[in-house]
């Protein structure tokens, strides 16, 4: 065990040891620490193998920003070992390993690195045959490159979602975020402060820069990762399995910085840690990270690490100073370590750093702490519209954000020093208060501008980024990209960063460029002789940090609607099918399906059938201008429609294409009851509201689709069935003619009854309040030998009559003329939607028509979308096809060129099996062309 005594180890509870397994071996840690720290305490720095070359890798920053710490925990892949706490019995294993972590059979691939040049994806695996990629290369590369192991049988707890509202969301509870949140809370704002860590404080938790007390008067969310900024300050915060959707009046992004790696040969060896990581291990977890350290102090943070190492009694063999650190001379002297001017040129070791080279001198060590500077955590700010710039004079990256309501504070805003970050946080908090319209907190005006950070000029060391002739100087650890790879990508002609990214895959790994983007920008800028700011970074998109798909998916909800008669259908053995959101009976009864459907059709043609039409759209249009309103919306005349009459409704769009149909019953001078197709009612309802917003007619529209149920009673015996039921409606032919409607009571149920003829037989459609529909259904069924029929029989019945289904037989361009429905288009009305286009299109001539096609009995292989051929060339297609039980042969509706539309024309169709068959254009209906069946009763 390499543990330090208290006060080191602020986060661990030494009284609660926890045992878990790593690679099958028992490991003991303490409650409160992460998998990575518990392993480091065992001297286990190597956590994974790299993606491409299978090189040994360990943690670098221990801040949840890297791919090298991804491990498998039980069935859960890609767990960040530097964020996930240990728990009793966890089974942790390394990823991307063939064999064991220590002896990876595929590690030899690194020896062939020079045969895997940048962009090798695009040019290496092309041969020897055309199928080589699919059959040979891809399976092998997948086996090598997979991250983690997915267990399809594993069950994870369902993600939950919550909503959170606040005046101010502060992301990041470091010095700046805490200062901002506390100031705003004191000023009366409702503040939420979220941080990825288990406690607020950020870098204060592991640096000697002062302790944070628990903030008061605000809501603190720990272990909470803000993964995205979306429009109007809507942010996603993932906390455990919970996805919070936060709507904030103001947002302060105090997201800090990301420590950048140093670039030199073998800079990826385990044991090479950031200055922050060294301090985290020592101060938070009481872990002695090694026995002999070297510190690369490109910035003063290196000295912080050296001081922590010294305090933990870990010998610092050397402090490597690539440049002087003015103002820190006394600290350096006090460290009593050898100070070497220069940089790290190379590291060496097997599975862990064993020595580093400065110039031509090798220094042995098992820990190298590097401090070259931090990148502002640009992901969230850039999602909110910030642009990344580069202050060449100060040698650091800057962010600029002008969006009202979003503020940057602290390191991410260029104020990295402790006092400066706090002052900048207070400035941001004050700005948020002002924007919220709250009185400014009791602060001096001086905080309007943050003080200059004395170390600002030292915040970033611009390390040289020349390729090492022997390579292995990694820029992107996720994708194993070396300096030369990026230089070569530019040499290949990819000058723009987004192209370099796509060609080289830089920044595409799990860490999304957090450690590589800035170095890449510098390499590309240098190679193309441009400014770093001109090159920039790749577009930042949500999520800023990895999210589990399960968190996003949460509960699965499928909107589903049932009619009031659903239980009746089930009791009758209906085969229920989804139709949009609705469930409808497709057919009733078991056994031979075609036979059942044929029986249902025959029942309607010869007796009486009952169909649940509750899914139809039902709209009530009320007001003095109701008739005028329908006149403008539909193609037929409704203003002159007498009360008690039913009229067909055909709706066009402004392009003159048919979009919906239904019927309208005039209940009173100022009231219509209008139906629409099942799928279109939402759109029709919305269109009615839009049109009337423009017309300003005195009407209102109520959508009664769910409130009313509908029963269609159809067949020669329909009248006999209804007449047998008690009620006050006279269903006789004289009293209740075709295309009229009556309101009354049937079997004790108030109904709106309409005599319409979708099936072609004598039909009454009874609409009633949904809650009373089962009683009405039962009464009708009890009236004797009524056969319920389903959707398929209904479709056949209407096809036999040549009736179209909007959407099934029509497309986005179908005009009434093409559909043979000119009869439904008023020529007298001065206006209706689509009138002008219909007339213009009529003048252009009709090029195609929808016609009924009758095929000889025995014709096989017909189906929807079968092509109509003219001179052997596709010229149309079938839209509806059925074997008519009534007629005994296949019938269809088909789009054909206008020249083939005359009844009697023989039309050629290619069947599904490729056979060419012929059918004849029928008149407007296959069945009962004279419409005599409407009056046939038994």
């Amino acid at each position, binding site marked *: 065990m390499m543990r330090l005594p208290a006060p080191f180890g602020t986060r661990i509870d030494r009284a609660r040891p926890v045992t878990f397994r790593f690679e099958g071996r028992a490991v003991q840690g303490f409650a409160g620490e992460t998998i990575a720290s518990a392993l480091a305490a065992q001297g286990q720095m190597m956590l994974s193998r790299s993606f491409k070359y299978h090189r040994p890798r360990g943690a670098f920053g221990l801040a949840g920003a890297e791919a090298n710490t991804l491990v498998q925990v039980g069935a859960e892949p890609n767990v960040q070992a530097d964020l996930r706490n240990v728990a009793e019995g966890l089974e942790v294993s390394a990823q991307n390993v063939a064999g064991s972590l220590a002896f990876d059979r595929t590690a030899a691939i690194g020896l062939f690195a020079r045969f895997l040049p940048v962009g090798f994806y695009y040019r290496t695996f092309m041969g020897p045959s055309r199928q080589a990629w699919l059959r040979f290369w891809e399976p092998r590369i997948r086996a090598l490159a997979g991250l983690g192991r997915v267990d399809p049988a594993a069950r994870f707890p369902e993600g939950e979602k919550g909503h959170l509202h606040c005046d101010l969301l502060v992301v990041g509870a470091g010095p700046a975020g805490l200062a901002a949140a506390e100031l705003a809370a004191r000023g009366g704002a409702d503040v939420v402060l979220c941080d990825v860590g288990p406690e607020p404080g950020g870098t204060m938790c592991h640096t000697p820069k002062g302790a944070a007390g628990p903030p008061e008067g605000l809501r603190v969310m720990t272990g909470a990762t803000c993964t995205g900024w979306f*429009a109007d300050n809507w942010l996603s915060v993932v906390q455990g399995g919970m996805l919070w959707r936060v709507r904030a009046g103001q947002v302060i992004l105090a997201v800090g910085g990301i420590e950048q790696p140093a670039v030199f040969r073998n800079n990826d060896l385990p044991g090479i840690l950031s200055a922050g990581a060294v301090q985290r291990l020592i101060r938070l977890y009481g872990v002695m990270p090694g026995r002999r350290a070297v510190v690369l102090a490109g910035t003063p943070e290196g000295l912080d690490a050296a001081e922590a190492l010294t305090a933990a009694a870990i010998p610092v063999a050397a402090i490597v100073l690539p440049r002087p650190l003015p103002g820190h001379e006394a600290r350096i002297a006090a460290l009593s370590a050898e100070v070497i001017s220069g940089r790290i040129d190379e590291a060496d070791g097997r599975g862990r750093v064993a020595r580093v080279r400065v110039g031509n001198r090798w220094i042995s060590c098992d820990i190298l702490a590097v401090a070259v500077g931090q990148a502002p955590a640009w992901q969230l700010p850039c999602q909110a519209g910030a642009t990344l710039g580069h202050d060449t004079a100060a040698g650091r990256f800057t962010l600029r954000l002008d969006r009202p309501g979003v503020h940057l504070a602290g390191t991410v805003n260029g104020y990295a020093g402790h006092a400066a970050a706090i002052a900048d946080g207070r400035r941001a908090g004050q700005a948020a208060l002002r924007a919220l319209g709250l009185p400014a907190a009791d602060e001096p005006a001086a905080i309007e501008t943050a003080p200059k950070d004395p170390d600002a000029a030292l915040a970033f060391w611009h390390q040289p980024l020349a390729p090492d002739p022997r390579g292995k100087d990694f820029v992107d650890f996720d994708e194993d990209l070396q300096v030369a790879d990026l230089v070569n990508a530019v040499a290949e002609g990819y000058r723009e960063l987004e192209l370099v990214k796509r060609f080289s895959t830089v920044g595409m790994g799990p860490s999304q460029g957090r450690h590589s983007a800035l170095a890449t920008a510098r390499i590309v800028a240098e190679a193309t002789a441009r400014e770093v700011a001109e090159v920039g970074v790749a577009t930042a998109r949500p999520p800023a940090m990895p999210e589990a798909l399960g968190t996003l998916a949460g509960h699965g909800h499928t909107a589903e609607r049932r009619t009031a008669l659903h239980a009746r259908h089930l009791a009758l053995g209906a085969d229920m099918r989804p139709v949009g959101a609705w469930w409808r009976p497709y057919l009733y009864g078991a056994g031979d399906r075609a036979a059942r459907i044929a029986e249902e059709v025959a029942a309607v043609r010869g007796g009486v059938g009952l169909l649940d039409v509750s899914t139809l759209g039902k709209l009530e249009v009320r007001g003095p201008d109701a008739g005028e309103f329908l006149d403008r919306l539909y193609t037929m005349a409704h203003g002159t429609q007498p009360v008690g009459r039913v009229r067909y409704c055909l709706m066009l769009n402004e392009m003159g294409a048919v979009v919906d149909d239904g019927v309208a019953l005039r209940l009173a001078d100022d009231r219509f009851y209008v139906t629409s197709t099942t799928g279109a009612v939402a759109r029709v309802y919305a269109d009615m509201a839009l049109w009337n917003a423009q017309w300003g007619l005195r009407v209102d529209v109520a*959508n009664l689709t769910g409130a009313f149920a509908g029963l269609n009673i159809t067949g020669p015996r329909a009248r006999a069935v209804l007449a047998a039921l008690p009620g006050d409606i006279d269903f006789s032919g004289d009293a209740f003619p075709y295309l009229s409607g009556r309101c009354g009571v049937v079997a004790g149920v108030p109904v709106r009854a309409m005599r319409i003829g979708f099936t072609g037989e004598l039909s009454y459609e009874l609409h009633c309040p949904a809650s009373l529909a089962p009683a009405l259904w039962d009464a009708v069924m009890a009236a004797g030998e009524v056969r319920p029929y389903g959707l398929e029989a209904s479709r056949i019945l209407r096809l036999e009559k040549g009736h179209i289904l909007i959407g099934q037989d029509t497309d986005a361009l179908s005009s009434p003329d093409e559909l043979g429905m000119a009869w439904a288009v008023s020529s007298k009305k001065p206006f209706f939607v689509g009138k002008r286009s219909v007339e213009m299109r009529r003048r252009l001539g009709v090029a195609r028509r929808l016609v009924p096609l009758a095929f000889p009995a025995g014709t096989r292989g017909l189906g929807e979308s079968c092509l109509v051929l003219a001179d052997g060339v596709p010229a149309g297609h079938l839209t509806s096809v059925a074997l008519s039980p009534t007629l005994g042969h296949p019938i269809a509706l088909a789009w054909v060129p206008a020249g083939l539309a005359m009844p009697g024309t023989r039309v050629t169709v290619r069947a599904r099996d490729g056979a060419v068959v012929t059918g004849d254009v029928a008149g407007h209906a296959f069945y009962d062309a004279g419409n005599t069946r409407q009056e046939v009763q038994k």
Partner: protein
Amino acid sequence: MKLLTCPLNGPRNIDEFQYLGPLRPELSKDAPDAAWAVHLFRAENRPGPMVEWWRHTPSNTVFLAERHTVTDTVLRTWLPEPDA
């Protein structure tokens, strides 16, 4: 998620709304066919403020919104005046 202010119901999440297209000037009945075709099929898509029809779906409130198409900022929303 974007917020849109329904003139009747106040600011609501954008997923409660339906976009119904830009407000277009009415075309004279005497306009030639070609002008009608342009009216129907050519969307100007001009950068800058644009007035659009929107609908708050749960309340079926149709209203107008002026939105800057470059910044995606909604400048104002209002109910149409019935031309009584």
